[in-house]
């Protein structure tokens, strides 16, 4: 049984706390957050957990066996380093880090300490994405040619002090959101040779961005990731892909899901809409807990998470410079 110390009390911490309730081998025994709402968060989502205002104090004082980091991106490094110093296994939300230097430091820290560590590239647990990869790996669409993904949403209107809207902290839509597709496509295809990106940006009280990233993989496959934080408030979050090979095509569009369609309804009534019996976040954390319990290596390596950060940072650099950028050259 893993005794989890959860760091953070925002949107992702809530998602993880909910998932841990469904995981037999893990229990959140402590929560640490800088936010004033930490007591309320714990009361609602982790009623048996001790509450701390300082994460390192929690790691020292609470009887935790692993740490789950659900905090703003720039804080990941010091929190993971703190866990590693204490020999605590750690799960960290994506993106791994805001900079290559921080990503390198995290990879070094977890490898030196020998802790079990994984980054939350949760797309690898979404069945529509897993199934596509399984079929590609089985050769069902032949040799890959063009891979197109979309991830479209309104700007995040949550996050402490609107940190998502601060590019210095979040890296914007490319590092915070497109990174899901970067990691997925790299998982499917392999290393990226170069990216060319365009990003439109405007401010309406929140940071709006709409980005397009062309990716050239080392094997010659071409990808296109379109990611938006530019949709109007209230727009449904949309993901889609079209993965084309020389022997076939895989298409998915979340707009076609419609597991449960609701018209009207009594005010305040709850109508769950996910078609999945188990959420991808629960799958992801269950896998990590299992790795911690059994000593197995997690699906997603520290290097994987760092490579995804490099692709995203290359895309940001390309957007700024108007030229193709290699993930290998960023941060050097």
């Amino acid at each position: 049984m893993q005794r989890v110390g959860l760091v953070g009390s925002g949107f992702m911490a809530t998602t993880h706390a909910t998932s841990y309730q469904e995981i037999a081998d893990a229990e959140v025994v402590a929560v640490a957050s800088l936010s004033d709402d930490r007591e309320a968060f714990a009361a609602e989502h982790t009623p048996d957990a001790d509450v701390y205002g300082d994460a390192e104090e929690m790691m020292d004082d609470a009887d935790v066996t692993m740490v789950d980091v659900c905090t703003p991106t720039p804080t990941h490094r010091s929190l993971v380093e703190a866990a590693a110093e204490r020999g605590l296994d750690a799960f960290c939300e994506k993106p791994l880090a805001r900079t290559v230097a921080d990503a390198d430091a995290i990879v070094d820290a977890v490898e030196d300490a020998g802790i079990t560590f994984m980054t939350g590239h949760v797309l690898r647990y979404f069945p529509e994405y897993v199934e596509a990869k399984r079929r590609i790996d089985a050769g069902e669409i032949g040799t890959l040619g063009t891979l197109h993904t979309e991830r479209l949403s309104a700007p995040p209107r949550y996050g402490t002090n609107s940190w998502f809207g601060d590019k210095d902290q979040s890296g914007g839509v490319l590092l915070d959101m497109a990174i899901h597709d970067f990691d997925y496509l790299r998982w499917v295809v392999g290393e990226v040779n170069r990216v060319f990106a365009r990003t439109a940006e405007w401010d309406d009280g929140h940071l709006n961005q709409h980005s397009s990233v062309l990716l050239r993989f080392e094997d010659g496959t071409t990808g296109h990731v379109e990611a938006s934080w530019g949709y109007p408030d209230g727009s449904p979050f949309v993901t889609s892909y079209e993965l084309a090979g020389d022997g076939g095509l895989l298409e998915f569009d979340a707009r076609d899901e419609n597991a449960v369609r609701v018209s009207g309804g009594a005010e305040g009534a709850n109508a769950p809409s996910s078609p999945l019996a188990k959420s991808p976040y629960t799958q992801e954390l269950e896998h990590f807990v299992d790795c911690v319990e059994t000593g197995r290596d997690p699906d997603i390596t520290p290097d994987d998470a760092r490579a995804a950060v490099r692709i995203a940072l290359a895309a940001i650099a390309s957007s700024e410079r108007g030229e193709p950028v290699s993930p290998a050259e960023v941060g050097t």
Partner: protein
Amino acid sequence: MTVRIGLCSTAHHHAHSYADSLSDLPDAELVGVTEVGDRVADARAAADDYGVDYRDPDDLFADVDGVVVCSTNADHLAWVERAADAGVDILCEKPLAPTVAEARAIADTCREAGVNAGVAMPLRFSQPVRNAKTAMEDGLLGDLRFLSGTNRGQMPGGWFVDEEASGGGAVMDHSVHIVDVVRWLTGEDVDEVYAETGTKFHDIGVEDVNFLSMTLTDGTEFVLDGSWSKPDEWDFWGDATLRLVGSEGVVSVDCFGQKLKQTSDDADPAIQSVYWGSNPDEGLVRDFVDAVREDRPPMKTVADAVNDVAVVEAAYESAERTEAVAVEHR
């Protein structure tokens, strides 16, 4: 007055749809089909299909008010020169020409001969595109920030993959439709293009991957996937979509999204999608016939299309150099 139209070459498969649209117009007549070289037999067969005569070129030119040129891209210039010589108006299949030099020669020839000449851009007559134009003009988008389009299709084969006849592959064939729509909707030109291309789907001598990342002259960013990436067994020929992202809203256009699904136990393919939306070619042909009658330029002129070809030429240069290339337009 019945407007008399001839068809120069049926090498391009769009010829059949234009012939159908012409025969539906009460005030126009498809007079005949002509061709030169190796494809005369094909043109004779097509003329039979359309129920019109096959005519020798000069004989046809002497008997019509306008011609539709559906030859290979490389032959556009020669047909336009003959038609302009004969003083007849012209609707030319897209892309206008394989090179900017030839496209300019076409535009200059038509201007000097005083004939009205246009390029077949049916998406300007697509009702979903027109709806988007109305929404834009109504201010729905606020400020336009980003454009993302697709014109993915099946690999057409034949002369389309013979560089001598086509000038190139997917970049040549599937860039200009959405580029034209964007230029038409925004009133801007393409300023710069970066291209990722390749040959990944078919064993052919031209590219079938066509990703273009562009900026417009006002700085708006515009990305287009015009690859021949749809499998031969796909349930439709391809797509034409455009997403317009604005500060106040987003408009997503799917020109051929209006499809019903048909399953037939005894047919091959057993499952296919059938387009039921309004046919953009009807509007295109209607506009050309009206232009001939009214002695005015068609909606999309050859002069304007030179700048579409400039985008294509810059895209090839970008793919060659692996860097963004400025588009030269006039």
